[in-house]
């Protein structure tokens, strides 16, 4: 049908299918057991990449929304929607793994003194209104425009919120982003591979969703041309 539709999907899928077992193998057989937390620390290689990919997805959704408003190309809106939708799913995963980690290392499912966790929850609560807002607007053109405005504001809110929440509480969590150089080289390497695998998974799932949505639209357009309704 359309050769551009789903281009690169196979390459991405194969890369992801290869990267995830490699990352898991590194996590379980290569990275050393952490001295204080023991085996539980392995969740770090899942939780932190999930969180980073989620936040990048949200910010990316905002950048794509800027592109949509600048170019008025509806494909950018679709990309922004897919990025935010997928980030929401990854974000739920982040909250669950974060909660498990908190329970394991601090004994509580939820820790208010942990700024990263709290900021993440606020961001998730904000983005949870993306779809209700979007689908409460009937006109498709206005829907795309308003969703883009939301995505831009929320994308800018992500760093602002982290700043405010982090100022408000003491540090408790291992500061991963700032201190990955403090990780032993084996752990740092494993972490980077896990992060790459997670980013690949995100990209693959996004491009699957995009392809599915485009194909459905194409199908609708064709069947309208052919007179099926």
């Amino acid at each position, binding site marked *: 049908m359309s050769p551009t539709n789903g281009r690169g999907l196979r390459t991405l899928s194969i890369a992801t299918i290869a990267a995830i077992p490699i990352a898991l193998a590194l996590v379980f057989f290569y990275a050393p057991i952490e001295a204080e937390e023991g085996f539980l620390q392995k969740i770090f290689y899942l939780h932190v990449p999930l969180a980073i990919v989620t936040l990048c997805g949200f910010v990316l959704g905002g950048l794509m929304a800027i592109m949509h408003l600048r170019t008025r190309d509806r494909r950018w809106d679709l990309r922004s929607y897919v990025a935010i939708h997928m980030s929401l799913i990854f974000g739920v995963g982040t909250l669950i793994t974060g909660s498990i980690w908190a329970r394991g290392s601090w004994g509580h499912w939820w820790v208010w003194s942990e700024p990263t966790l709290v900021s993440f929850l606020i961001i998730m609560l904000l983005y949870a209104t993306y779809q209700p807002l979007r689908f409460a607007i*009937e006109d498709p053109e206005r829907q795309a425009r308003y969703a883009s405005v939301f995505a831009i*504001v*929320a994308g800018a*809110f992500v760093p*602002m919120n982290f700043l405010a*929440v982090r*100022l*408000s509480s003491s540090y408790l969590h291992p500061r991963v982003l700032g201190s990955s150089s403090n990780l032993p080289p084996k752990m740092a390497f494993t972490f980077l591979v896990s992060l790459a695998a997670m980013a690949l998974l995100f990209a693959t799932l996004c491009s699957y969703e995009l392809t599915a949505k485009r194909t459905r639209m194409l199908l609708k357009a064709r069947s309208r041309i052919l007179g099926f309704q």
Partner: protein
Amino acid sequence: MSAHIPAPSRSLAASPPEASPPAAVAGRSAPVRASRKPPGMWATVAALLRKELLVELRTLESVPGMSLFAVTTFVVFHFALNQNTVSGDEAAGILWVTLLFAAMLGVNRLFVADQDQGGFDAFLLAPVDRSAMLLAKALALLAYLAVLELIAVPAFGLLLLAPPLGQTLPDLLVVLVLADMGIAAIGTLVAALAVQTRARDLLGPLLALPLLVPVVIGAARASSPLLVLAHPAGVGGVPIRWLATLALYDLVFGLIAYAVFDFLLED
């Protein structure tokens, strides 16, 4: 001649004939437009702000409701917490939760008249900068919040607050102004987003509350040392970093609202 030129522009501005308050003001500014030069940004903002305040003065739709809500909420807090007086963190929390929720009432109503009575259409027909609408609405919301706080803060001092309000009032005023500016910027933007949706009363607060969490953090942390029982020095008790956070928030989201607001007004 002067009787004949404004006539077409008046009928243009008043195209939805039942749109009384916005059309009346658009009609008033018609002579300005008839002089072939569109009114400047500030003239437009002033005209729109005047319209907003006039409509509010005549209908009394938002501000009395917001103020009454705030005072009632203090009473509810008294019974819910089973305490006669509060101070410190608790007092700051009660004050800011109440002010925020009262502000939500105003945010929800901010664009409803324009949406229902054709004010948007009348505004879009006028050859003026669209950002004027954002500025005028944000200033109107700021004025509503100021009146709300003029009533709610003394009521809070009277009903719930243990330490006397007097000596900390100048510091508290700074916090209130900084927080109000953030609430006004985000509130106006969110109100414009939500008013076009089917569930506008629900979506407004749902969107605004997470976005305003940094304001609540900053405002509550900045005002809690002002509301403790044994206030040490009287003046200068505001942690400067919270004021800086609030100011940064105001700046960032003021600029973002300014940048994206135009896209909400095209049709």
